[in-house]
């Protein structure tokens, strides 16, 4: 039978190391999550206890159901933690390798900065900066392509949401300059 070759090929521009050391194991992360969930269950449980978890004359008080949900959440997490420590602690896989973690941060940190910038510059300017910066520094795409793409994208978003669909977005000084 004829075998056709791939016709669409997209190479990853970022060099890859196959063997990169593990940052942490899945078991450790899982344990941390269980501990956090137990703390959350205790804090929320206390709040619901305070707002009343018993029965009033007209039925259960407002803290009744959430309080018992906290009990279930806490016990399930405790069970998970115990099960993990006793049975599965050794031999669990890698959570992320250092290389993977770096790539995840490459997208997480810009996203965080984008959210921060949105508060001061408005969402459209912030998204222009995010798209252009990401394309240039992470994707290593030529400057002019990055700038043109992100400008068109930000403008298209502005036209779609602010003008065509009347969905109001946070705006900053630049939009104010144009009278929006």
């Amino acid at each position: 039978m004829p075998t056709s070759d791939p016709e669409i090929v997209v190479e990853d521009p970022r060099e890859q190391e196959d063997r990169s050391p593990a940052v942490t194991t899945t078991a450790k992360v899982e344990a941390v999550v269980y501990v956090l969930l137990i703390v959350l269950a205790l804090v929320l449980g206390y709040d619901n206890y305070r707002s009343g978890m018993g029965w009033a004359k007209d039925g259960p008080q407002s803290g009744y159901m959430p309080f018992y949900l906290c009990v279930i959440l806490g016990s399930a997490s405790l069970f998970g933690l115990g099960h993990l420590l006793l049975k599965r602690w050794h031999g669990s896989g890698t959570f992320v390798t250092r290389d993977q973690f770096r790539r995840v941060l490459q997208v997480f940190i810009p996203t965080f900065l984008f959210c921060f910038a949105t508060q001061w510059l408005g969402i459209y300017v912030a998204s222009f900066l995010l798209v252009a910066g990401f394309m240039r520094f992470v994707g290593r795409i030529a400057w002019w392509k990055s700038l043109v793409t992100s400008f068109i994208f930000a403008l298209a978003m502005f036209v779609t949401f602010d003008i065509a669909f009347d969905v109001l977005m946070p705006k900053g000084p630049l939009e104010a300059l144009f009278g929006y």
Partner: protein
Amino acid sequence: MEALSLLLHGFAVLITWKTLSLMMVGLLLGVFVGVLPGLGGPNGVAILLPLTFTMDPTAAIVMLSCIYWGALFGGAITSILFNIPGEAWSVATTFDGYPMAQQGKAAEALTAAFTSSFIGSFVAVLLITFVAPGIASFALRFGPPEFFAVYFLTFCSFVGLGREAKHKTIISMTLGLLLAAVGMDTISGQLRMTFGFTDLFRGVNFLVAVIGLFGISEILLTMEERLALRGHAAAIKLRVVLKVWKELPRYWVTLLRSSAIGCWLGITPGGAIAASFMGYNLAKQFDKNPSTFGKGRIEGVFAPETAAHASGTSALLPMLALGIPGSGTAAILLGGLMVWGLNPGPLLFVEHKDFVWAVIASMYLGNIVGLVIVLTTVPIFASILRVPFAAVAPMIVVSCAIGAYAIQNAMFDVWLMLLFGVVGYVFKKIGVPLAPFTLALVLGNRSEDAFRLSMIGAGGDLRVFWSNSLVGSISTLAVILLLWPLASKIFEHAGRLLRPAKT
């Protein structure tokens, strides 16, 4: 025959230029998000939801459900051409779809996938048309105890039948229920779990959580992987389409079997993935020479695609008739309905007849139009994957942020979305399922209201859930499902203990 005349009325509501063009836009956007790596049905619908806030509910839901159909169609494109399943339920499509593409039969495989998707959805829509009104009118007799029992059944079936570790499902579900309870208590008006933060008074919005859990976390996961792609370009010629269609009647058993599996599993929560695998495996089992599967058999595309779409579509049945979503995307559509002040459930069929039947009519139209669109535009969509991910990723992030902000015009929600993104990423990596969380978050308030109203009605007596045969049998079924894994373990154990005694 009342259903038929109501359906015709539904078509009449739909056929306006405005609605039809919105359908086209929705379908194209849907295929687009289905093809893009790191986006899929639920994320696409959640992110694009804000676009529809200013439309009237009918137009909005039609557009949203078309995005959903489009995403279902789009998932097949990447599975067949690139061996990348866009969604978990497209995994089974890659088994035979990708080998077909390698053999130069990509066009046949794609035609088969689209056609069988269409057939699967069509059977499911027929089911919805004729069964949903009946269920809804039956459910009109439900009081708070019956509704709570049905919600309880939904939660229990997730715990009992889910394949993940039980404690992880329970954690995910209770966490969702707790977050749903944050903010104003709907019955007493008291504030709960807000710790004095004014931003929490409104509660944790369901859609903000979904955008973070599915959209942002998916970007993080996609970035972690290598981004190189290799795939096949394909254009579908009319001749090929007709050829595949002419052979279609030969596979009627496979198509019918997969549709039935899909419809059944779609109505029970979380079934689309199981349906596609089951459809595939059964087709393989009943075949005369099963060893040829996995090497490019066209049935290997027909079987899982039909089942996946039948279940994806029939997941909307319990949502419309009972207010209980059968899948993640159905849960998001339900969240959307509530934004427009429509309360899904049996009353919807009485109070908003026009709306319900327009939605059902749009399922028919959307699938037909969708089939035509995907068959003609495959080459364009396949080439979208040439766009570097470094350009697509930040745009998805921006769309997520816009979506999260627009729901309540609150910057706090954008930060919340980011937090949920991290939570979703970690949960996916340590194997905590997200579907129960989504379901619990959307049903949390309704199930608590139902519980407390039935408690108030019965004076705090838990026996109200076994007070008549209807509510009693639902509650008993729920408890059985909840304890099912435990019971089967005990039986297994007992069997092992008994066997040596017998011999």
